[in-house]
């Protein structure tokens, strides 16, 4: 019965049916399932399908956003429960879209997933200069600095940030992503991690911290 409801929840995310996602989340909780299991076996698989369909050009950005909205509604119910069960937190991620770039849809999905997985996430928003990454990494005592770029003209800036972090001797891991980024590029600029979608971003972040 859980399995069926979880599948329905995944489908509600895929369809972008926010009300349905909320109802199913509450039903699953009432049935005694843990928040984390609902996230891992309902929401994540749903969002995975959405991400895959987007890459295959079967759906477009508005549909991704509708799905994200449904996921967010469900997460809003789960988050307090996740926070309670996840203490102490897995780690702190400071994340932003790099300078000159205002694309943040993908980054926001990554944030949602990381929070769901128990990370404390500080969102620096868009058009983020290196100084802001540095300052936040220091002040927030970050474990990971995440950077997103969607433009070929701004992806090079990630290297600037990574170099500045190193020059200042900050002991943080760096993780990069965004449509034009490849694993080879990530390696070339000295990033510690790369992920091609939000679910992988969670795995990568955990791997980087050894949790």
């Amino acid at each position: 019965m859980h399995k069926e409801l979880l599948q329905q929840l995944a489908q509600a995310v895929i369809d972008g049916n926010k009300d349905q996602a909320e109802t199913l989340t509450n039903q699953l909780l009432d049935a005694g399932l843990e928040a984390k299991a609902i996230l891992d076996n309902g929401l994540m698989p749903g969002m995975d399908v959405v991400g895959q369909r987007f890459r295959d050009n079967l759906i477009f950005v508005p549909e991704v956003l509708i799905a994200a909205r449904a996921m967010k509604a469900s997460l809003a119910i789960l988050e307090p429960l996740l926070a309670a069960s996840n203490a102490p937190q897995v780690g702190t991620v400071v994340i932003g879209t790099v300078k000159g770039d205002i694309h943040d849809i993908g980054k926001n999905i990554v944030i949602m997933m990381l929070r769901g997985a128990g990370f404390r996430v500080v969102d620096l928003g868009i058009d983020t200069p290196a100084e802001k990454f540095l300052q936040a990494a220091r002040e927030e005592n970050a474990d990971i600095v995440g950077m997103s770029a969607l433009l070929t003209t701004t992806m090079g800036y990630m290297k600037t940030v990574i170099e500045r972090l190193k020059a200042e001797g900050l002991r943080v891991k760096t993780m990069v992503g965004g449509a034009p980024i490849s694993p080879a590029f990530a390696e070339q600029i000295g990033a510690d991690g790369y992920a091609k979608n939000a679910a992988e971003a969670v795995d990568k972040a955990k791997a980087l911290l050894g949790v």
Partner: protein
Amino acid sequence: MPLVELRFSANELELDLAQVFKLLKLPRQHPQAEEWRQRIAAVEPRVRERLEPKAQYRIVPIEARLPERQTVVLAGEARFTGRGVYRRLAGCRHAAAFLLTLGHRLDSSLRQCNQDDPLDGYLSDCVAAAFTHSVLRRIEREVRQWAEARRLQLTPRYSPGYHGWPLQDQRPLFSLLQTETMNVKLNDQFFMIPQKSVSGIWGLKPEKA
């Protein structure tokens, strides 16, 4: 030809729904087309309310072509360089340089909207982009009238940053206009602020007999 300024009230600009669908990359026959139409209609007033549409254009003679540098010299002051722009302006005696903006107020509101709800933010962004097309059509109509009276025809519209015309040429393009009165600036990456601004040219060449 002197510079021409166009002013519009927010309410006179039509919103082309087909254009919004195209920008959203949603097929017109989308199974939920009606729902999307309603969502678009819901965000439209908020976008329209913040429009401060302005446009400017100037038709200038093309004075020289420098094949070895792939450069076109306009009105003695501006030079456009690039394979694409050089080719696009082949056979043209004039170019019409234009700039339009929807203004600063919209920019901050789009940013806010995007934070409140990314879906509404994205829809609003595409609605705003469709409004830039409405303004473009107005400018094009006037330029076309001027051209047709002189038996000239318009080449397809072209902008710096597109294939074969580096974005740096926003500078010489801006130099042909009076961008201060439009309150549009370039940042160090040559992007325009406010963001909902469009710049570019049409080439004008003699009609084929």
